[in-house]
């Protein structure tokens, strides 16, 4: 289609837009309208509303002290907020990193040929297809002190009371939360990396082998840099999800201090309605934190990409 090029060529001042061009231009914009409408009105609207409320604008609760930074002040001024933030980031980071490593390893195995490959191609996608809540249920069954692993330990005579089983769920180490995220997201990362791996083919790896590189070197210097785009976008998505997720830390977390989404949930469910605004300040903080971190990550990656001559 001549559209883009004609638009790109408009720089020449002597050129006028023809009627034909203006029409195509118009249709282009029309095609972007629905998506804009949803995102600007709903997503943007909700975001703005959340921000307004967190700044004290909530006439429907009889509160309007806009702009009022006291909610953020109260939130950020308390040490538990920072502990909660730390926990939120800790769970998100650790699980993303583990899922990333497991996912890359799995993708690397999947590009090989082996007899049960078809089975594995079904198997590994299973968690991807199932809601997080199922993962949480499985974690409860397997990992709790009354769970399957604990019972096995008792069966083998290692423990004789559930309390003796090392606590995996409901601790601030968050092993249960991490287990669920890893269980659910390893497939996602595997899929992304595997798909990218298939796309790049094996030639560069072979070239590296011929040039004398061993397997380690091939992986770190040839394969990894090429699957990086897949790695970056999938980790980004998982990390952002983990920062904002509520169910797993709520059900499997160690209680107070909770992760930020759970804190917000508790605020929203408090009998004290003024805490609603505190909750808004909390969710806005979550958005801010996720945004800042992912921005940083993306910016770093873009710089790397540019250094590599892509884009």
């Amino acid at each position, binding site marked *: 289609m001549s559209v883009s090029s004609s638009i790109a060529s408009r720089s020449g001042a002597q050129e006028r837009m023809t009627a034909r061009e203006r029409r195509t231009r118009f249709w282009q914009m029309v095609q972007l309208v629905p998506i804009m409408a949803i995102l600007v009105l709903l997503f943007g609207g909700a*975001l703005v509303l959340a921000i307004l409320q967190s700044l004290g604008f909530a006439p429907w609760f009889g509160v309007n002290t806009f702009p009022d930074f006291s909610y953020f002040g109260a939130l950020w001024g308390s040490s538990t907020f920072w502990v909660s933030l730390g926990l939120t980031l800790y769970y998100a980071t650790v699980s993303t990193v583990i899922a990333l490593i497991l996912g890359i390893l799995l993708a690397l195995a999947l590009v090989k040929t082996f007899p049960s490959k078809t089975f594995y191609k079904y198997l590994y996608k*299973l968690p991807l297809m199932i809601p997080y809540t199922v993962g949480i249920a499985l974690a409860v069954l397997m990992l709790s002190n009354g769970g399957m692993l604990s019972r096995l330990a008792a069966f083998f005579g290692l423990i004789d009371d559930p309390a003796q089983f090392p606590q995996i769920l409901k601790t601030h180490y968050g092993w249960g939360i991490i287990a669920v995220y890893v269980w659910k997201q390893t497939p996602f990362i595997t899929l992304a990396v595997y*798909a990218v791996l298939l796309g790049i083919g094996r030639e560069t790896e072979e070239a590296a082998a011929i040039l004398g590189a061993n397997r380690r070197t091939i992986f770190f210097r040839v394969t990894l840099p090429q699957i990086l785009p897949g790695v970056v976008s999938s980790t980004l998505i998982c990390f952002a999800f983990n920062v904002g997720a509520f169910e797993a830390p709520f059900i499997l977390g160690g209680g107070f201090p909770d992760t930020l989404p759970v804190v917000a949930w508790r605020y929203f469910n408090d009998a004290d309605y003024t805490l609603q605004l505190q909750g808004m300040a909390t969710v806005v903080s979550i958005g801010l934190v*996720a945004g800042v971190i992912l921005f940083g990550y993306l910016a770093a990656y873009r710089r790397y990409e540019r250094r590599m001559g892509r884009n």
Partner: protein
Amino acid sequence: MARKFNIALSSRLSPFQKFYLLIIAGFILGPFIPLIIQSFAFRWAWPDLLPGTWWLEQRDRAMVPLAWDYVLSPYSRVWEATVNTVLIGSIVTVICLAICLPAARVLAREKFRGKSAFEFFLSLPLIVPEAAIGIALLMMFIRLGLAGSYVGIIIAHLIPTIPYMVRMLTAVYQGLGRDFEEQAMILGASRWQVLRLVTLPMLLPGVVAGALFTFLVSTNIFLLTFFLGQGQIVTLPTLLFSKIAGGTLDASAAGITLIVTLPGIILLIISERFIKEEAFGKGFGN
């Protein structure tokens, strides 16, 4: 013969990889064993490896349906939740496709001012957690009378699904190249014919992959559905959440958990036949 060679750069699995694959299979499938057992249990207390009393032993004496009797009865709302989940997922997918397809074309093919800002805005919902907008969205929806309605849920689900769909479709559009559409035009095809006869069929793998992902994301959404459904609209994730929120699982919760996995398994079996992994890759390529 040639053992070392195989290790150096082969298409076979290394011993570590074989071991790793076994571990992964255990990690993914293992937990389903106690889940299935639990769904048939009446009383299964620590430290028993199998239930002390099975549901079937108590079935006749029970004053209310237990375990699978409850799960499969209308009381559990499992059927309603399944229908809701699939229905909402499907409608969201279709709408999402309809609004993302034209946008993706423009994004893949055209240059315009503010394009990169626009693209960034499009992926913002991936970054901003649902928790951050859920309550505010609920307030808006209550005012609009959309809270607790299908329409409300479907619209809300578009927010987190659009970024996936747009990425996937933009990538396939970029991979498509203009040649084919141009060739069709030269051969005399109209705009609509180009779309119907050339563009869509060629985009199909990407479209299917995008649709599958959208459906998955939609059927996985908990918080938005939970907030906006107002208890009126029950989907599989919200139903299951209510059952396990306390952190324990009884037989009916286990049964419901199993039911919640079913659509995913069915979808997996269907999609694995029609979608090649490569199709997903496009969305993550860059």
